[in-house]
């Protein structure tokens, strides 16, 4: 399988500078479509105090300290904790032993030994099948698929095996299920990933009962949700927005902690419109709602789904029943995407309260051509326009 443009050097140290050089330039008069300033966005914790104020953290974590980490370092910290605290945890995939092409497994093989952190042959169906087998015999395997774009050879193992094992085992499942199994994969647009280093295939997995699908938006979430995924009695697909690996930096509690799965987080309260998203587009949503609130004198509520399946339907419906307007934003194609499920559920659960059609701001119905990413992935302007539309409807 081809994996161009992913040498450690280019991904670890060149992607973001190269984004700045070639792709992040914006039209000189742009007011909306300007790059996210991760250093000031309110979606990241810029102080230790802010990070420790999170009510979802354990008391120990809240009483502890924080370290400034980016997303890959937060994942590394979670993996390290899991390996240290549970001898059943294994970490493997293509090129994980030397640290991984995105540096998520740095130093773990030398600390925990090559019997617990190791390279596999280059075969995604083999990696996931191997993980299923290790899990049903009592281990807690963390399998890495190098890019979400390459998960498809393992689709059968995920859909027909991992997802169905507990169900088909019936009363044997207490000893023969594959809980503790996590499939990690970098996903989403990265500026120049083109067709096979940009995909966000989460919607394909939300149609699979038995799997949990989690997409973190920040280092704090990555650590807490990954540790929750490893503890979960259900198999989890954990999609890491690769553009945030280095870009998103915040204070992360030093102690181990978990964040709840299948629970949405209200990032900002509002009363006129609800925006629902997950992963990278949340930053774009934040920029769009800041501009809209200023220009249009409205108040926007922003919700991070965190787990896209099984998802927190009640929190979303409660919010839309309050605001009466709903916009769903994601990178992957609009057709049959996560937004379709959210929109249909909102329509069912909030019919009498809706004051405008539910808007889906998502990838257009095409592939991710190299030169066109900034037209393909929802940007601040498209989200701003959607806010305007629902308010003026």
């Amino acid at each position, binding site marked *: 399988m*081809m*994996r*161009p*443009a*992913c*040498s*450690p050097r*280019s991904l670890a140290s060149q992607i973001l500078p190269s984004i700045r050089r070639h792709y992040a330039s914006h039209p000189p008069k742009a007011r909306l479509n300007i790059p996210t300033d991760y250093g000031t966005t309110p979606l990241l914790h810029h102080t230790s105090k802010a990070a420790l104020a999170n009510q979802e953290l354990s008391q120990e974590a809240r009483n502890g300290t924080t370290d400034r980490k980016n997303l890959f370092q937060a994942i590394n910290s979670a993996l390290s904790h899991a390996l240290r605290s549970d*001898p059943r945890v294994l970490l493997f995939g293509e*090129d994980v*032993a*030397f640290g991984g*092409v995105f540096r998520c497994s740095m130093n773990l093989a030398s600390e925990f*030994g*090559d*019997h617990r952190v*190791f*390279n596999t*042959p280059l*075969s995604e*169906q*083999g990696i*996931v*099948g*191997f*993980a*299923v*087998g*290790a*899990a*049903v*015999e*009592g*281990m807690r*395997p963390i399998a890495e698929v190098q890019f979400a774009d390459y998960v498809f*050879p393992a689709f*059968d*193992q995920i859909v*027909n*095996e991992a997802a169905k*094992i*507990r*169900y*088909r*085992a*019936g*009363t*044997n499942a207490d*000893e*023969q*299920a594959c809980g503790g199994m996590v499939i990690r994969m970098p996903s989403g647009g990265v500026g120049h990933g083109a067709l096979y280093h940009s995909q966000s295939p989460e919607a394909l997995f939300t149609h699979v*009962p*038995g799997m*949990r699908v989690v997409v973190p938006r920040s280092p704090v979430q990555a650590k807490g949700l990954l540790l929750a995924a490893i503890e*979960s*009695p*259900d198999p989890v697909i954990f999609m890491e927005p690769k553009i945030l690996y280095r870009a998103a930096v915040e204070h992360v509690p030093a102690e181990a902690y978990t964040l709840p799965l*299948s629970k949405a987080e209200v990032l900002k309260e509002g009363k006129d419109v609800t925006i629902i998203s997950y992963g990278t587009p949340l930053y774009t949503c934040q920029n769009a709602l800041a501009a809209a609130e200023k220009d249009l004198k409205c108040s926007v509520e922003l919700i991070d789904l965190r787990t896209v399946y*099984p998802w927190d*339907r009640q929190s979303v419906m409660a919010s839309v029943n309050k605001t009466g307007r709903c916009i769903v934003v994601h990178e992957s194609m609009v057709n049959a995407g996560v937004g379709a499920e959210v929109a249909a559920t909102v329509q069912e659960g909030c019919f009498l309260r809706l004051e405008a059609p539910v808007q889906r701001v998502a990838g257009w119905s095409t592939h991710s051509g190299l030169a066109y990413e900034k037209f393909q992935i929802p940007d601040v302007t498209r989200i701003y326009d959607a806010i305007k539309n629902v308010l003026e409807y």
Partner: protein
Amino acid sequence: MAAKRSISVLGRNVLAQRGVTAATQSSLCSRCQQRWSSVSQKPGSDRVHFPGAVNSRFTTNLDFARATEEDAMPTYRVLDQEGQVIDQNHAPDISDEEAIRLYKAMVSVSIMDLIMFDAQRQGRISFYMVSAGEEGIAVGSASSLNPKDPIFAQYRETGIFQYRGFTLDDFMAQLFATKDDTGLARNMPVHYGSKKYHVHTISSPLATQIPHASGAAYAVKMQNQQNPTEDPRVVACYFGEGAASEGDFHAALNIAATRACPVLFICRNNGYAISTPTLEQYRGDGIASRGVGYGIDTIRVDGNDILAVREVTKRARDLALTDGGRPVLIEAMSYRVSHHSTSDDSFAYRAKVEVEDWKRRDNPITRLRKWMEGKKIWDEGKEKELRADTRKAVLDAYRKAEKEKKPPVGASMADVYAQPTEEQREQMRQMRRIVEMYPDEYDLSEFEGGVEGITLDFKKR
């Protein structure tokens, strides 16, 4: 591709620099260590020192390697078709009691097969697959495993369950999808599974279980090391020669070899994958020839000779535990005497006379029987009694299971996740509302608890 390779080579170099440390760090994986200390090509060497092949001689003869029929891997056997020991210096190592146990297990499977095949034909169960001609592979190999060795099966290995202790009631509960089925009536017939007997639940997708076996074997290998006072375990994995064409076969054998997993890959090569003969399945020397290519110790055995299968499995199990663990491939040759399944009429693609010939001339049950008769531990009287008793026991279990209820309807939605989701609870309420509102449209009489069973809080047995 170039970028990808450079990562791998970089990774190896990083490891190579710590070569000695890495090699001593882990006792688990002596065979996983790399096989060279440097990737440089020494001047004047007569051998390859490229990283991908480190001990190949150079040659000036431009010859392509080609497998020929003369080179075909030999097939190990102990008994001939008349049940006579071929090598008198090598007597089978088996007690009379154990031989009779194997024989009874094979006969029991074959009698249950005949009765349940007919039961499907009469519409009593929805589907069935017999093992005719292959009882010896399942029973013979299972008899050489430790009872706690995890097993992953394909679907034509009923003899494993029989040998490990499945009762006729256990079989019937699964086949009739009753409330006593441990699979809670979710799987098609013949998709057995048992935590009690350490056999993972069978699933229909072919070959998916093969990489599971590699991963399970890796888990078992770590557990063997962590619990040195317990008997070390291996994993056994069964599949047909057709399934071996799936990508999962390739993935599984390769990863088992590179991670040195104690797993026995047991291929039942019965000549057909539904209608497809082996000539349309592969052109190499069967499945066995591939094992060597993965660096896996491999043997071919006569699958109609249960004593040979048993001995080969025993030796393979010892081998699999050597040096902390390694995979072994066994290709057991046989002939699928039966139709593929109850949904198949095999005379559409093969001659009846060919089947009859195999049935009459060579099958594992008659071969062992002839050997036992030669040893005077079996005779016509015992044979008649065994067949009559087994037939009666199968029919008794059949009639009992046929009257049992199915599990509560709530079982249709439980266990998708460890805990039901909020969405599932709502859907279960909707299902119940519909059934209650239109009672004449649904027959709940065969489900335990009736309408009260339409809940996610039903009690599992």
